[in-house]
């Protein structure tokens, strides 16, 4: 794949990406999460960045994330998200489900 070609995030995986990102980096604010996902996937996976926010709100409500207000390096007010215990459990469940599904798909797409 050439750089610059962007693919839609498979539906349902946005939660997994956010959870995983936070698990790896600890506390992050909205832009950092989006930026991290982008740079990790080398800009292959592309979403309208705004779609992050409904997902974050939903996960806050579910109690997977905790949001705490703090200051950025530029001294701006920002909400920092981190995982709760419940969030970690959810990450395990999502990861397991993801690998199960992707293995299944792999078996069809790349026959041995």
């Amino acid at each position: 794949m050439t750089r610059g070609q962007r693919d839609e995030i498979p539906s349902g995986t946005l939660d997994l990406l956010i959870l995983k990102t936070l698990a790896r980096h600890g506390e992050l604010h909205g832009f950092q999460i989006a930026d991290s996902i982008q740079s990790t996937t080398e800009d292959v996976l592309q979403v309208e960045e705004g779609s992050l926010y409904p997902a974050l709100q939903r996960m806050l409500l579910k109690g997977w994330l905790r949001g705490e207000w703090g200051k950025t390096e530029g001294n701006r007010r920002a909400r920092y998200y981190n995982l709760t215990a419940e969030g970690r459990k959810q990450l395990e469940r999502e990861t397991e489900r993801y690998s199960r599904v992707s293995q299944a798909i792999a078996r069809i797409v790349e026959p041995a």
Partner: protein
Amino acid sequence: MREWLRRVRYLWRRDQAAEDLRDEMRLHVELRARQLRERGLAGDDAQSAARRQFGNRGQWEDRSREIWGWTVWERVVQDFRMGVRALRKTPGFTCVAVLTLAVGLGMNTAVYSVVNAVMLRQLPYARPGQLVSLWEEHPPDHDQFSSHGDGLNLAGAQTRTSVAVANLADYSASQTMAGMASFDGTGMNLTGIGLPERVSGLAVSANFFAVLGVEPLRGRDFRAEDDTPNAPAVVLVSYDFWQRRLGGDTEVLERSVMLDGRPSRIVGVLPRGFQSPSELAEGVARELYVPAAYTAEQLHDRDDHGVAVVARLRPGVTMRSAQADLKVIQARLARQFPATNKEMYPVIGALRDDVVKGTGTALWSLLGASGLLVLIACLNVANLLLVRATGRRRELSVRLAMGASRMRLVRLFLAESLLLAAAGCAAGMLVGMALTRALIALAPADIPRIETTTMDWTVFAVAAAIAIITGVLFGMAPAWQASQTRPVEALKTAARSSGGKAQWRWRASLTVAEVGLSLVLLVGAGLLLRSFAVVMGVDLGFRADRVLAMNIRLPQSHYPSAGDRLRFFEALESRVRALAGVEAVAYANRMPMRGSWRSGFQLDGSVDELTADFQTVNAGYFETFGIALLRGRLPTAHDREGQPPVAVVNQAFGRVFLHGQDPLGHEFLYGDNARVRIVGVVADIRRGGKTAAVLPEVYLSAAQTTLYPVRLADFAVRTAGNPLLLADAIRREVLAIDKDQPVVHVRSMAQVVDESVAQRRFQMLLLAVFAAVAVALAVMGIYGVLSYSMAQRTGELGIRIALGARPRGIVGLVMGQAGQLIAAGLVLGLGGALVLTRFLESLLFQLRSTDWVTYAGAAAVLAVAAGAAALVPAMRSARVDPMAALREE
């Protein structure tokens, strides 16, 4: 669970949360733009690239807020706000709709509350469903009376009578009965506590309270040994008596009271608020309860029908099986005592039905009428909503074209309807509470239990539910209909059409139904009104004006013989005659309209026993009541004991018993074979009041005391001025003769007559108010429908006028349309009235429920009112300026 808590937190601080969200997003875009600039993009490009990457910020914000789950709520609040705004823009419509609902609901609730208190609510006794009242019935004695009846044909009906104590023992032996108690009203002169006073009480069998399932609050119930003629006198007093007359004395059980000059020991106090069946039925407070203590003579006389009976069925026994068992007992008694019991049948009925007898039909009719009113109110609101919706088709089309979803439109209308219904219900509640209070205040005193009425919330809820459903159905129907149409077409046609054929038909049928129902109420009110006029026009045959009547019940203990009583009244007569302003003085066993006494006699040596109303009167009686002497003479002071017995009879006596011959000079055998000579004939009177029949009357001379078995007790004077002003003076004369003698029931006869028609007046007034409201609603309905339909046709009318139509023609066009609606409504209403007013029949006096004059009158009134309502929009249409109308297109 925790998730819900978090949601609720969002609800409280959702403005802050939204602000936070916007901050986060703004920061995100700024940081991205800075990053892009650092990677070398120009400032503006970086900015717009960052925005592009983020997407539509508003949309993402909305999506985020939806997650909180309060958007539905917010939308509902918004819908209602818009509803309030829309309703406030059309204050006329809103007021009329709310008022209509308020009046309909309020009236219905108030009337139902009264009906419930009087008729439906359980009696205040233990397991009231088991309680029955028992009476005896026999075939009517003399069917010749019915030919002089007041139009109510009772021929063939059994005559109801009170029960002979002697039969009671046999009836109560029935296996179906758990207990059977007798009671009879009694009055006692109470002395020793303040002024002497006559107190009404009940003479009851010892098991009376046990049968009702009531225990005394203090002291004890009657015992069997109290209930014998020679037992020491005991009395149970009501809670009120204890509190009011004895000051709530805690030593009450140690006290005695003087009743008819005899000391009676108080053995118990009844619970607060206890009312015996006779109080419930007659509304007369009973303060004292004494054992009936029937004499051996009474207990064997099967011909002496004198007591009321209440009985309790054994658990599981039905009325039908109890009645069947009584029939078996009756058959046995008929064989054993053919003279007295052959045609005397015990009959039972639910105690509750018995308590409300008389007022039942009237109240059910009122309830029916108020139900019709609710229906009319709902129809009217439905009509208003449809009319209003028609006027808003263009608004709806615009909203649709602007992208409002169909669901959204329906929701908007739903919110408006619900608001209307809620306001109507709230106002209806207030109207209902006020009307309930007014009804109790206005109702005649003799409607049982009416004072116990409280606002009935259940029925209010039901009526409110009906109103809300109506509002919602008819409020949403147009929205639904409008949302089915294509906006562009609707926009094009909205201004011109009046809502399509279908809607017109709907509204027309609603209006027709409204007119029809109103006519039913109007006919009902008209019938009662005419009947009342007939009643008021009835000549009593005696003059009730300027007569003061009162009751002076002389106790047996002080006045043991009829001669003693006569002497008292003669003394009183001479004293009162000396008072200024007294024109004539009467005393008798009973004055007119205060009951009578029927007795048998044998005319001219015949062995056939006849029955007539008897009175025993002094000479001044006829002058006092203005009853004219037609032939012969009146009894005089010389017709005393020892002189040949004389009587005066009325004209009906001759008509009924002597085939129209002059009764003068005839003789009859009465009492102990006394030969009574008829010495005079007086004019007929309606003893029982305006609606009573004219019956044969026999007047005996009060001075011939051995002739009659009743007691002299009523006293009356004809006065020169206001009769009530003499009350105190007469009372003083009574006390001057006997300082312990109470005077009760002091009333002007005019008052008594007025009270006797109070129920009729009340019924008539209520129904008249209902009818007036119904007609007003119907008129509003017609006005509304025509106004709107004409407003929608302004363009068409403009063209007609421009083409030369004359104003007269336009008016004719509109009135023709109105005429169709009204005519259809009238036909429907006349049919409905014919069917429904049959239930009013028993309330009418000398008037059939099919009285065509009333029908024609009601139809005419409604037609004129509706026509006048239609004329307003018709005239307005005729004045349409064609230029202005066409420019609007």
